[in-house]
């Protein structure tokens, strides 16, 4: 059976035009998807049932036992942490936050290692953003700063920018100008009209210089700024100012290099400066398919987008103090529940070591690096294949993912609801 308009749950683009052929409980082909989507839908390495360490190795256990033991571990902890959430749907994220409140736990999502600094910058100076539809139909100058969409978001250019014809840009490839800024020449840089090679950690200075140039203060710019010549900076500033509608996209090259959120703030302030002359918007290139959703769900329930500490019964937020990397590095937490993420692969070594030291439980369809640090793993259905739910695209547009067939695994929502019920019983009224 061929199913049309399937939503891909891999990256923040949430492409919703895939055609997937299903044979019973098996995906047999994917059309319109990128390489990443094909691997996501066609991959067949699911964990068969819940597993637990028994001192010698792994043993298979029932879902009931796995959930009961998880509840006991979390209830006994003085500083539990519930981490991940960006690889699951909004309904499950919502239960997770209520569970954290019940436990007096710290709840954090993967923004902590990706666009958390972008959110900090947005909290300082706001977010002049727009939907990807606006970019597709209007943007005649596109900037990718510290991001390589051809590798990380393979269909971003073909659906929304360089290769996508829009309402006001009938021949996008010729009509749009592309600027790429990075520390090395990437695949995306190869097709740019202007490629700026920046010294590592030099983004803040280059952004400050561009802001001064756009303000008309060209005379103070030195001959070279972080490896970028004054002539190229002037040329790029002129190109930016020539736009009728400009769109800036930025990635982890900006958020995770020295300066972090101050880099993003500077980029937002450049956007605002450019908007004094023409129209400009700026958007983060979000990674996990529902990381934006986790920020939305966290915010509407707790008031904060990530790194929320319920230890004292009320929500407290202070990235650097309540972010999971910092908490793990300082060995603060004494139990961890991981949902829809793989911190074993993404976190620094000291954090992974602490995860291995404390009781860590993972809820995830597949075995991964975190499995090796965990005490229990509970397999679940994959959202967008055998489970459904709401996700948010990188521009904040909510999209309902579809269930392609009814599988044998429970969804994240079902597991978390059962866990919540057990914890609530243990905590009493």
């Amino acid at each position: 059976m061929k199913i049309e308009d399937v939503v891909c749950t891999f990256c923040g683009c949430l492409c919703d035009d895939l055609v997937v052929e299903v044979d019973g409980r098996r995906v047999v082909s994917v059309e319109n998807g990128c390489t990443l989507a094909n691997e996501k839908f066609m991959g067949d390495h699911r964990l068969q049932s819940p597993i637990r360490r028994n001192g010698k190795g792994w043993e298979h256990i029932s879902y009931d036992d796995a959930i009961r033991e998880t509840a006991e571990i979390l209830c006994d902890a003085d500083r539990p942490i519930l981490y991940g959430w960006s690889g699951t749907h909004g309904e499950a994220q919502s239960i997770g936050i209520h569970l954290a409140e019940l436990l007096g736990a710290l709840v954090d999502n993967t923004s902590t290692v990706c666009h958390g600094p972008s959110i900090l910058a947005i909290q300082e100076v706001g977010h002049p953003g727009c939907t990807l539809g606006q970019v597709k139909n209007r943007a005649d100058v596109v900037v990718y700063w510290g991001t390589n969409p051809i590798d990380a978001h393979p269909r971003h250019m073909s659906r929304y920018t360089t290769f996508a014809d829009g309402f006001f840009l009938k021949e996008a490839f010729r009509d749009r100008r592309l600027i790429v800024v990075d520390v090395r020449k990437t695949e995306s840089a190869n097709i740019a009209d202007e490629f700026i090679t920046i010294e590592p950690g030099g983004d803040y200075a280059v952004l400050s210089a561009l802001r001064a140039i756009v303000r008309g203060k060209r005379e103070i710019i030195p001959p070279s700024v972080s490896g970028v010549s004054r002539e190229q900076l002037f040329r790029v500033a002129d190109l930016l100012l020539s736009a009728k509608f400009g769109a800036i996209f930025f990635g982890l090259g900006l958020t995770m290099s020295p300066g972090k959120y101050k880099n993003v703030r500077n980029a937002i302030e450049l956007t605002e400066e450019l908007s004094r002359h023409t129209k400009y918007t700026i958007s983060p290139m979000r990674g996990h398919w529902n990381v934006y959703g986790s920020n939305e769900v966290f915010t509407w329930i707790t008031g904060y987008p990530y790194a929320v500490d319920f230890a004292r019964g009320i929500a407290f937020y202070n990235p650097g103090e309540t972010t999971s990397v910092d908490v793990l590095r300082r060995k603060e937490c004494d139990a961890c529940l991981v949902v829809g993420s793989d911190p074993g692969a993404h976190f620094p070594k000291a954090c992974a070591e602490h995860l291995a030291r404390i009781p860590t439980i993972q809820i995830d369809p597949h075995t991964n690096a975190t499995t090796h640090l965990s005490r229990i793993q509970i397999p679940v259905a994959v959202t967008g294949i055998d489970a459904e739910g709401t996700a948010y695209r990188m521009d904040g547009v909510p999209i309902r993912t579809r269930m392609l067939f009814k599988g044998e695994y429970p969804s994240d929502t079902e597991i978390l609801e059962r866990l919540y019920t057990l914890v609530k019983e243990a905590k009493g009224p």
Partner: protein
Amino acid sequence: MRVILRTKPRKKPFIPIEAEAIIPQNFLRKNDITVYEGNKERKLDEIFYITTEGPAVSPDQVEIVLSGETGRIKRVGEYMNAGRIVIEGDIGMHCGNFMSAGEIIIKGNADAWLGREMRGGIIRCEGNASHYCAAGYRGEKRGMRGGIVQVMGNAGDFTAEYLSGGEVTIHGDCGDLPGVEMRGGTLIIGGNCRRPCGNMTGGICMIFGKADAMLPTFRNTGSEEKEYGGHHHRMTMYRGDIANRGKGTLLVKIN
């Protein structure tokens, strides 16, 4: 009155303690003081051996001495408005948050956000201070607004972010972006630092070591002589941050 708080051994010593109740005025009233250890509320005597010496009739006559494993105790001296706190070793995050008067002496190192959004009083740290020393809370437009912070050792990144008033002196080195977004007050750095005063709009920053990776958006306006550590130094004077129409003053020693 002198109150000595010595930490008791803990089963889980890495779990932080939130102790904003440890301020002189609370000990004057002898209320039941509680702190949080992780998600559990504890009485003060569950965490500390407590010794009290002498009387006091006002908070400024109260001195609190903290000793033992104090490096994980957060928010000591928050909203303090009189008296004195002496910390014999290290102290956790947010020491002296919003304090308006009194004195805090730290004989070891201070963790991040020392003197966050401080309004008045004195903090003296004899060791090093971590990131965001004398800065503001996330999203806050004004950091430290008054008082004095002195760090005898080094300080981390984003020192005196959003500084709006008062005087911050770091006698050692600073990390990245000290004085970023500063809009008032005085920041003195005795050692080296990197990318000082990005986006500053006001205030004065003096650097008596080396400033690495100076931002391109500061205008050289001449030189001036300043005194630090009993010596006079010739300083290059910059105005900026031009990127932000800033009117701040940045002085860097001519090496």
